[in-house]
């Protein structure tokens, strides 16, 4: 930690005191109040304070480490109340979906009318259709808010996001995108740049196979995702993702939520290779009677 970091910390502390912002707070439901009626959606607090956490040798916020969201966005991005599990007769309260005030700015995902009908069909057939059930790669931005940790390995030239779920990962070069993606993929193709202390990741080249959550929210191959990781201190990143897909939505829309650092001493990913958990569902009916499944 050098003099530059100390100066930054002091400046941040001074600024924090002047502005009266609680240092390093995670949004406790305080919205940005962007003219929305009634309680605004729970977005991250406006990060007017400067970043107070550690920096890498090249002066960027040091995002190396293990991270995880606390939202239940993976169940449903939009505001929703608690819902029973698929099999309450056996499972009772376990795997019932928790409720949430939602992570979508403006509360509603702006589907085109025909697309909204498809979303509802998806939701009604969730277990059959959600790629998560089959342990397929989650796509973006869903990989960020799956209920599993992920690890960031950050260098000046490449940033590796290693997601615990399904050992999905992406190596994101830091630099401009030089050519259009050659093929459509599950995780798309990402390029990153720094805007001040915000890491901006631009992703496209997606196939249409992934969902945004377990509520049937989906997209086409035109999907374009721009994520912004704005760390506010050593332990919290304010995250938002703008989603654009003119085939499915009437306009771009945005989600946001904080990402928290795992601070325990033995914080690490423990593999979630879920293919073996999905095989019986996918192929069990073709197994020889009596053979192991």
């Amino acid at each position: 930690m050098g003099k530059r970091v100390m100066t930054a910390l002091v400046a941040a502390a001074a600024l924090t005191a002047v502005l009266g912002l609680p240092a390093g707070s995670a949004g406790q439901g305080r919205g940005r109040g962007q003219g929305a009626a009634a309680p605004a959606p729970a977005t991250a607090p406006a990060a007017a304070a400067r970043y107070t956490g550690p920096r890498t040798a090249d002066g960027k916020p040091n995002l190396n480490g293990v991270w995880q969201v606390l939202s239940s966005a993976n169940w449903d991005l939009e505001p929703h109340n608690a819902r029973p599990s698929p099999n309450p007769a056996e499972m009772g309260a376990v795997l019932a979906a928790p409720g949430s005030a939602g992570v979508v700015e403006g509360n509603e995902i702006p589907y085109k009318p025909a697309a909204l009908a498809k979303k509802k069909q998806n939701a009604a057939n969730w277990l059959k259709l959600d790629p998560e059930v089959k342990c397929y790669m989650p796509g973006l931005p869903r990989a960020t808010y799956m209920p599993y940790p992920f690890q960031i390995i950050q260098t000046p030239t490449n940033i590796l996001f290693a997601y615990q779920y399904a050992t999905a990962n992406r190596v994101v070069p830091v630099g401009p995108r030089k050519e259009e993606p050659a093929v459509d993929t599950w995780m798309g193709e990402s390029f990153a740049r720094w805007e001040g202390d915000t890491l901006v990741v631009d992703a496209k080249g997606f196939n249409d196979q992934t969902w945004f959550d377990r509520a049937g929210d989906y997209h086409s191959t035109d999907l374009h995702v721009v994520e912004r990781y704005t760390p506010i201190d050593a332990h919290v990143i304010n995250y938002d993702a703008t989603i654009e897909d003119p085939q499915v939505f009437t306009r771009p829309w945005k989600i946001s939520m904080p990402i928290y650092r795992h601070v325990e001493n033995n914080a690490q990913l423990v593999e979630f290779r879920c293919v073996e958990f999905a095989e019986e569902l996918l192929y069990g009916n073709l197994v020889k009677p009596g053979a192991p499944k």
Partner: protein
Amino acid sequence: MARRALFVDVLAVVAVLAIASPIAVEGQGAAAPSAAPAKRYTPPRTADGRPDLQGMWTFWDDTPFETPGVPTRRRDGDEGAVGSADRTVAQLQAARAAAGLPQEENVFYAEGPLIPKRKSIVVEPAIGHVPLSGAAAQKNNERQDHFRDSYRYLTPYMRCITRGVPGGLFPTGVNNAVQFIQTPGTVAIVNEQIHEARVIPVDGSRHLPQSIRLWTGDSRGHWEGDTLVVDTTNFNDKGASVNHAQAGHLQGVGQSEALHVVERFTRVSDKTINYEVTVEDPNIYTAPWKAFVPLTKNDSYKMFEYACHEGNVYFMTNVLRAGRVQEKGPDNQAVSDSRRQAEEAAKAELEAAKAKAQQGK
């Protein structure tokens, strides 16, 4: 005359020595690649003073996994049991013709020339053959015999679960590429195949508790001089150390919880990382064995997403469904229909011939 003969002898000896040299030069080493390189190379260093292993490295290699010609316990002649690593394409085609099997169009699709570079990937024992126990060979044969019964009998690679450790660094037909990403305290090895990212702490931390058992184990790294040493334990007993078809009879040989893998990565030139691995599993092998694969820098190689499991439904359902159809045997409706038709046609022909003969009388 005598002097010329001596000169030729000396030349021959020198030539033989040069070919058989154990010195690891640019990845051409064979017998003892861990011997110190003839010329000391100083690698570029990261900010924290370690050798910089970063970048894109490919490892296509037609070197056979084991030395050809050494007898195995695999029963040959079974479709799928023909390991292509220990034969040339021509030999493979001859073997298929001799077994009465149809030729394949892509008998050995490959992303590089079919020219073996060294005697074998396995370098210890010196014979270049893995000391597989009889029990483990038997178990693998049984697994292979039942491969149409359940996905559980297929290799972890075929199930798109993992290439395994160290399996992921053994060359196969295509997509032999790894990308190293390094920070102080972490080395990540991202493998193109099955998009596997090994995130290896190099921070003095200990292995996970013994009760945690993983497909690719738990890896911890440390530096010995300029060599990255990665120690992996905590394996489950469901995976396999060697997963790929080019390993012939070793394909799918299982791992036990006693498996212990030690890998050594040494950058010996701008273009080459020497990769050596020691595999020890007393429940599977009668002795530890070592393999050597050089990794070659290739900045122009682009990795693509390897969506293995997502695309695997066709392979899986076809293999299993074929097994269920085969099981029906003579009672299989389609088979018995066609047999019945053939019998009826033969009978009709016989009747017609008899009738004709009768008329002729």
